[in-house]
């Protein structure tokens, strides 16, 4: 812990040194409008309730208050802080006290009882120094062009409290990051250093969206006891940091990026070992985070009414559960190539039709693995605006081709006033309970919500 505090101190000192240099170099912006005083305060209050139509019970009644403060020193330099007060009426999504083992000590939420917590969501200095755009502090870094499912958008981990139903901006977990960007060769080079060792927040046992699919959770054979060991987290700030690089360029009408991320994959790998004792067989499960190199890229372009976009990645170290009992640790390691190709059609006024094809291909599959070598998911989004974009109607459909399961999300939202929006919709899961979506087949729900800008 002392070591952790030392590192934090060094980071804070370095941050303040750079900030001080930037402040000294920048001149106050005296051309600003009266709209922009140096301090800006705002807040967004969001409330959403969900009623489980299959379980016939209220699943969720949450209130989220996100106050935001911004201090603007000059056109180029500002400090932004976003906090979050979260309270949940029923305590079904994250029941009881939060276990925050996946989260680094400096990023944890402060719990005020079982149902309420406070979190520093984002806190960063953004400045321009010696031709470099610097963003220092707790922040979100979003890569990629895909909607709904993630290939390149893996810099920040995610809270799966509501599986993938929560808005990604809300479910993404901001990380303490040094983010530097340069204009080079007509493009933009971004380098990331992420000392924050926080990973996916997986739903706790008993939570509404706790995982049960054998694609994710190892299944013990009948009669075999399970000994789940504590999660092993990387603990060295220097050697266990993530680093990333992205180069983006607009080239002959194409938006192109090349990405690289050396990181710990945010899902732990469940290494297993079988022990025979006089009392019977026991499987010991050691969840551990494993390093991976991600190499990829993204593109988009528009052709008449069509916009084409895509991402492709290569993961060097992907771990997949296996049912092969002769396998030593219950998982196999393989390279993975995955891509998403999306087409957006906007040939009709105020209407968007969007379709995506995701495919993931394991390069070194082994017999007994729980997933198919080639895994395919499709998405379709239909969205139409009415009444000068005050009324929106949309349907999002995600379908796993391999498992035959999926999720359908019809939604209507209406902007009642300038800063007040309300919505209602359904989250409808279907299919095999062993599938990623089908595991929540009993979790269909009716959702109503409101968002107010303050």
């Amino acid at each position, binding site marked *: 812990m002392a070591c952790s505090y030392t590192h934090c101190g060094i980071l804070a000192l370095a941050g303040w040194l750079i900030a001080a240099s930037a402040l000294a170099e920048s001149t106050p912006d005296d*051309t600003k*409008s009266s*709209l*922009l005083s140096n301090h800006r305060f*705002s*807040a*967004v209050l969001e409330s959403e309730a969900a009623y489980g139509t299959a379980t016939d019970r209220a699943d969720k009644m949450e209130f989220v208050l996100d106050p*935001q403060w911004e201090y603007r020193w000059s056109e180029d330099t500002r400090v932004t802080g976003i906090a979050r007060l979260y309270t949940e009426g029923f305590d079904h999504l994250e029941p009881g006290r939060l276990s925050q083992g996946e989260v680094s000590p400096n990023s944890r939420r402060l719990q005020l009882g079982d149902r309420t917590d406070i979190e520093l969501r984002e806190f960063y200095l*953004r400045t321009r120094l010696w031709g470099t*755009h610097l*963003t220092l502090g707790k922040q*979100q870094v*979003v890569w*990629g*062009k895909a*909607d709904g499912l993630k290939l390149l958008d893996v810099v920040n981990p995610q809270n799966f409290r509501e599986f993938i139903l929560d*808005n*990604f*901006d809300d479910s*993404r977990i901001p990380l303490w990051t040094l983010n530097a*960007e340069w*204009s080079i060769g007509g493009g*933009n080079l*971004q380098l990331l250093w992420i000392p924050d060792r926080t990973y996916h927040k997986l739903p706790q046992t008993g939570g509404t969206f706790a995982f049960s699919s054998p694609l994710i959770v190892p299944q013990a054979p009948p009669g075999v006891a399970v000994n789940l060991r504590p999660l092993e987290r990387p603990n060295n700030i220097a050697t266990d940091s993530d680093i990333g690089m992205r180069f*983006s360029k*607009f080239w002959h*009408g194409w*938006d192109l990026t090349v990405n690289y991320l050396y990181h710990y994959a945010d899902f732990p790998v469940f290494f297993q070992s079988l022990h025979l004792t006089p009392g019977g067989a026991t499987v010991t499960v050691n969840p551990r985070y494993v390093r991976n190199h991600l190499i990829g890229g993204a593109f*988009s*372009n*528009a*052709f*008449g*009414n*069509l*916009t084409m*976009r895509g991402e492709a990645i290569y993961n060097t170290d992907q771990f997949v559960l296996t049912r092969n009992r002769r396998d030593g640790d219950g998982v196999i390691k393989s390279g993975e190539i995955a891509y998403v190709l999306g087409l*957006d059609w*906007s*040939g009709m*006024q*105020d209407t968007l039709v969007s379709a995506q094809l995701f495919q993931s291909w394991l390069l070194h599959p082994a017999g007994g693995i729980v997933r198919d070598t080639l895994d395919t998911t499709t998405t379709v989004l239909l969205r139409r*605006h009415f*009444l*000068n*974009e*005050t009324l929106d109607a949309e349907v999002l459909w995600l379908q796993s081709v391999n498992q035959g399961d999926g999720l359908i999300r019809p939604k209507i939202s209406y*902007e009642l*006033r*300038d*800063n007040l*929006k309300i919505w209602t919709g359904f989250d409808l899961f279907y299919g095999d309970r062993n599938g990623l979506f089908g595991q929540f087949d009993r979790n269909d729900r009716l959702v109503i919500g409101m*968002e*107010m*800008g*303050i």
Partner: protein
Amino acid sequence: MRSHIQNLFIALFLLIPLSVSDVAAESLLSGEEIARRINARNEGEVVSRFITMAMTDRSGTERVRETKSLRKYFGKEKRTIIFYLSPSNIKDTAFLTYDYPEADRDDDQWLYLPAARKVRRISASDRGDYFLGTDFTYEDIRKETKVGIEDYSWKTLGEETIDGHRCFLVEEIPVNEKMAQELGYSKVQSWIDAEIWMVRQAKYWDVAGNPLKTLQVREITLIQDIWTAHQLSAENHKTGHKTVFTFKDVNYGQSVKDEMFTEDALRRGY
């Protein structure tokens, strides 16, 4: 002799209307020439301003967005970026467009949506779609007070006075059905100031030929020797919805870096 004088008078009498007609033809410029003069009007290499977008529906409910807009010419290519500053629930939304001078080249457009924290490429053929709930189309936003010469056939109908200013009344018909569908108009009538070559008023008809909306340009003053409109209003006659853009702190002399007009600048925000 008498008949010679008589013939001379007759000839003069016949010539007078011809001469008047020639003078009228000279003062009544062709539609294309008026369009060229509109587009030749100086609008500065760079401009920075705040725009208040006030939208009012038929029942009188008003929505107000505060934005910051920057525009810069790169040669003949015009780049515009708009950052939303308030209200807080749509703050940080941003729009970027590259408007190319080549008639056969589609413009490029991007939209940053903070809820997704992603920049989305937008099809350039969304020209007739309304821009983020306003009564201005994406094309209107891109062109500002300029016009798409190649998109229409232009015809000067006459002269009229708007707010005490002499204006040419010009009728614009999209060059073909496809263009009409793309722009969302079957006909436009514009009143163009004959002194400063700025549209002061325009009426639009939808693709079915029904009256669609009226544009009014007000509070035109000289800023740093450039004629600048401080208020644009568009009223949709079909929906009763109205949008008023009010421009503040217009500055043509501010230094704006080239990198402000990139996808990464959209993400970084204002």
